[in-house]
């Protein structure tokens, strides 16, 4: 059931029997599981989640204060669907795809009222449609029939719906159309419009899933450098409050080289969504130079919005992502936070008095999580194009303890793990991704890409950095007992090199105009510069120069300024020369 359908009065298909928060039961309702219903005199939107004899249980997507037994329930007979078509980018939706800007003007108040519906895409707006097929062409489900310039940066590809039988094109014409007007007819009599509907809880079909071999370049050094994510891959960012999940997600939404970004604010703060709405139109996509907002779709079901719509917002988001994937785009979906989604499931489940599993979560938690992440991947689409969905889920473990069910079940599925660390955050080491705990299982399959596109020895240089950081980790344990000066000189020097790796390379200030984005080339060159320092320093040490003298050369601290350097190629080149000559002067 899509919100494009209007409801004036609520038909009495069933009668409310009881109300308890977001859970309502009704009698005499002839409904199927997951049907969308309108509840009470105000027609609040809900979804059937349990049927037991004559009693139907409904989760309601709006507040239920004042709703009581005896009020009517209307069944739409259709599951929860989204409207798909031009007009989804540069927009902000709630968890059931109601556009929040339209709600604001319909409700006439900045506060969310109840019982107001709005279609997911504007039904009146017209779009310039240009056919890409001709009369007589044979079409199958999913085929692209034409294009619409949706935003400055994105061309919308109009497709035959996935459940169509296909046929030959009878008529098709260029022109200005609304999303509900017919743009093509097939010889089967089927009329094709720009608007499609799709049930959110069902994955859109694809032919095949492939192994991802191209990274989702994030512009973030620790990610691109050590723990890369693939286009079509999955990643989790668990961390306690204030450790940097949202900033990391927003950095990816801003700077990653996805074609389309679907950002799902699931049960988090209102101001964080406002920030995106205010910032993104002003920021430029580093790939296209166009405003970031024109490739972005926001779904905001904040913590104080109804909990049932929080449960559905994840599905709404992934379905929109799949639709753009079908057009052949690389889509990145950020879900902040999947823990709030899991908690919404828990809350509904406990109102249903279901048998609780671990820590009160429903027994189907693990299954729901893996179903969701399963919808990520690099796909061969039914129309022959290739598209991908990368999913990055924030996880908010209670007390920051990663042993809890949502983190554990997520880690069983995802292949990239960016572990946030509150100690690092406290020290303001950002991004506070712990390099000892994090991992990416995509590293090997992405190496050929890095060799070809960044530097032939990229994997080796990275391995050097990993080794130094590992060694530092071991040495730190000794330092904590005896102090640094008790270590042999070469180990002291290793610590010095590791410090530059941490401070100059791993740290990256999201709020600095230049440092916020770092191309893979720059990431690589910065690492090389630190390695140059290391090589030269160890040569000096071998030649008998004391470590104290080595570490006090003027040039070395300049390594910390590489990130903020705008003319970085020149800066790094000069710096390497300076370090080399200053160190060689010492012997």
């Amino acid at each position, binding site marked *: 059931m899509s919100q494009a359908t209007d409801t004036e009065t609520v038909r009495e298909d069933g009668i409310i029997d009881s109300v308890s928060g977001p859970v309502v039961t009704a009698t005499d309702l002839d409904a199927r599981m997951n049907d969308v219903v309108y509840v009470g005199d105000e027609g609040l939107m809900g979804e059937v989640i349990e049927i037991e004899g004559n009693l139907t249980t409904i989760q309601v997507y709006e507040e239920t204060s004042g709703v009581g037994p005896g009020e009517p329930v209307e069944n739409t007979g259709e599951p929860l669907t989204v409207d798909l078509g031009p007009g989804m980018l540069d927009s902000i939706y709630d968890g059931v795809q109601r556009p929040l800007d339209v709600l604001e003007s319909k409700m006439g108040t900045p506060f969310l009222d109840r019982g107001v519906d709005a279609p997911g895409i504007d039904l009146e707006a017209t779009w310039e449609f240009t056919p890409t097929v001709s009369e007589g062409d044979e079409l199958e489900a999913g085929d692209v029939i034409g294009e619409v310039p949706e935003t400055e940066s994105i061309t919308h590809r109009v497709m035959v719906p996935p459940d169509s039988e296909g046929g030959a094109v009878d008529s098709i014409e260029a022109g200005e159309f609304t999303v509900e007007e017919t743009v093509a007819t097939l010889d089967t009599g089927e009329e094709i419009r720009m608007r499609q509907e799709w049930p959110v809880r069902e994955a859109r079909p694809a032919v095949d899933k492939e192994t991802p071999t191209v990274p989702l370049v994030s512009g973030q050094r620790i990610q691109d450098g050590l723990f890369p994510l693939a286009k079509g891959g999955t990643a989790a960012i668990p961390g306690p409050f204030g450790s940097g999940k949202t900033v990391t997600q927003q950095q990816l939404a801003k700077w990653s080289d996805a074609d389309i970004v679907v950002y799902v604010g699931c049960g988090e703060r209102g101001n964080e969504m406002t920030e995106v709405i205010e910032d993104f139109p002003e920021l430029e996509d580093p790939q296209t130079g166009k405003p970031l907002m024109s490739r972005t779709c926001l779904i905001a079901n904040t913590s104080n919005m109804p909990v049932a719509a929080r449960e559905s917002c994840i599905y709404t988001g992934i379905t929109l992502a799949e639709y753009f994937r079908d057009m052949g785009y690389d889509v990145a979906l950020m879900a902040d936070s999947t823990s709030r989604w899991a908690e919404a499931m828990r809350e509904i489940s406990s109102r249903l008095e279901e048998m609780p599993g671990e820590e009160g979560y429903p027994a189907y938690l693990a299954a729901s999580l893996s179903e969701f992440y399963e919808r990520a991947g690099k796909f061969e689409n039914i129309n022959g194009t290739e598209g991908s969905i990368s999913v990055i889920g924030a996880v908010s473990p209670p007390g920051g303890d990663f042993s809890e069910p949502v983190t554990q079940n997520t880690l069983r599925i995802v292949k990239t793990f960016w572990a946030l660390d509150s100690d690092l955050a*406290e020290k303001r080491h950002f991004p506070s991704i712990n390099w000892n705990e994090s991992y990416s299982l995509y590293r090997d399959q992405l190496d050929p890409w890095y060799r070809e596109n960044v530097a032939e020895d990229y994997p080796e240089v990275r391995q050097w950095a990993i080794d130094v950081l590992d060694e530092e980790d071991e040495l730190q344990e000794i330092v904590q007992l005896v102090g640094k000066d008790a270590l042999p000189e070469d180990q002291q020097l290793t610590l010095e090199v590791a410090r530059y790796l941490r401070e100059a390379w791993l740290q990256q200030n999201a709020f600095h105009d230049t440092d916020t984005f770092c191309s893979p080339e720059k990431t690589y060159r910065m690492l090389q510069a630190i390695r140059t320092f290391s090589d030269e320093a160890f040569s000096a040490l071998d030649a008998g120069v004391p470590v104290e003298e080595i570490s006090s050369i003027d040039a070395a601290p300049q390594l910390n300024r590489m990130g903020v350097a705008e003319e970085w190629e020149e800066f790094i080149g000069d710096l390497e020369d300076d370090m080399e000559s200053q160190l060689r002067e010492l012997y």
Partner: protein
Amino acid sequence: MKEYQTITEVSGPLVFAEVDEPVGYDEIVEIETQQGETLRGQVLESSEGLVSIQVFEGTGGIDRNASVRFLGETMKMPVTEDLLGRVLDGSGNPIDGGPEIVPDKREDIVGAAINPYSREYPEEFIQTGVSAIDGMNTLVRGQKLPIFSSSGQPHNELAMQIARQATVPEEAAEDEATDEPGSDEDGELGEGADDEGSEFAVIFGAMGITAEEANEFMDDFERTGALERSVVFMNLADDPAVERTVTPRMALTTAEYLAFEEGYHVLVILTDMTNYCEALREIGAAREEVPGRRGYPGYMYTDLAQLYERAGRIQGREGSVTQIPILTMPGDDDTHPIPDLTGYITEGQIYVDPALNSQGFKPPINVSPSLSRLMDDGIGEGLTRGDHADVKDQLFAAYAQGKDLRDLVNIVGREALSETDNKYLDFADRFEETFVDQGFDSNRSIDETLEIGWDLLSALPKEQLNRIDEELIAEHYREDIGEQVEATAE
């Protein structure tokens, strides 16, 4: 309105009654006991023929013969600008002997969520005069920034200091230009009603605190004249626990009205959120719900969010709601569900630290785990100062480094540390002694705060300041301080 004498069960704060007409979820109920006392409650669950009711004032005195009336509406409260200066109990009844409240309108206390699209991003710096906050964890208008404390700590003193000193400097400067000469501290809360330039108001929502604590606040409000611009809601330790679920909603409904309809910049102090959460737990237990972590309800995150998210700014509206909830962490443990869920919802937190307190530092704020998430957009050129972000980053890094060395120095002694390491150790000490320990009565401008920061940083070697732009170092670094330190060290 139908009256029932159909109570079937009384259990803890809950009453169950049979009804023969449908009753709406969340509706308000009046229960009249045989002694003629009227108690108020709310419908928690409504099914055909039976409702469960949560009674705010406690169920003492209720028996099967008590009569139950359903008022047919959800809980509302009168709002008006005249609430300013008034003291009310935890359910909104005046307890100051003043006149009856004539409402401008009646508002639902649950409040609807602000449409995220209609929000305006908060970025106006509030100067609290407290360096550990202004310099390191800046508060902005429309933010929700709790104080994480524990029993016996001076969190109230800190909250009062903020309430007294909070001002928006830019505005104060503007007012100074237009106002009559003499009023040089415009925009300050404590200034009383006679300065018209500012429209600050304080809402104080007390939940289960002791009468003594409440008096501290009241005395401070009266002493500084802030009471005239305050609305006080008092639910004290010996008041009914269930009422605590209503008190903050009343406080926030009042705040929203004053902010978004009357244009006030409202500062809401809610204390103690821990007592609020205990009340939630009590209700959950009485309803025999499946408990979440440590016995608190599974929906506590959502419930707290419905309070905290009522902070903010709205496009096209004058005022703002800034929240400073106070919570005492059981066992001083921030992984306890109350601080944990709060931290996940609020836009940062300020930690009051028992160790710093026992060393006598006032206010004993531990800046490291403290955080203001809205800081980054609220500071900088034109807002505070161009060097603010860099100075803050460097102070954080240097303080962390100094503190790290404290453990080590206990083992190996100062002599085993390098000269630079010793400087960091000194830095950490001096940071606490001068930057943090300013006293509850001192009110520092942001300039003073940042200058103290530069004083401290200048004792470190210049090349160690790698978080600060080189031009800013050239402009602010005090060569003389570095030399002084050198000299004394030798």
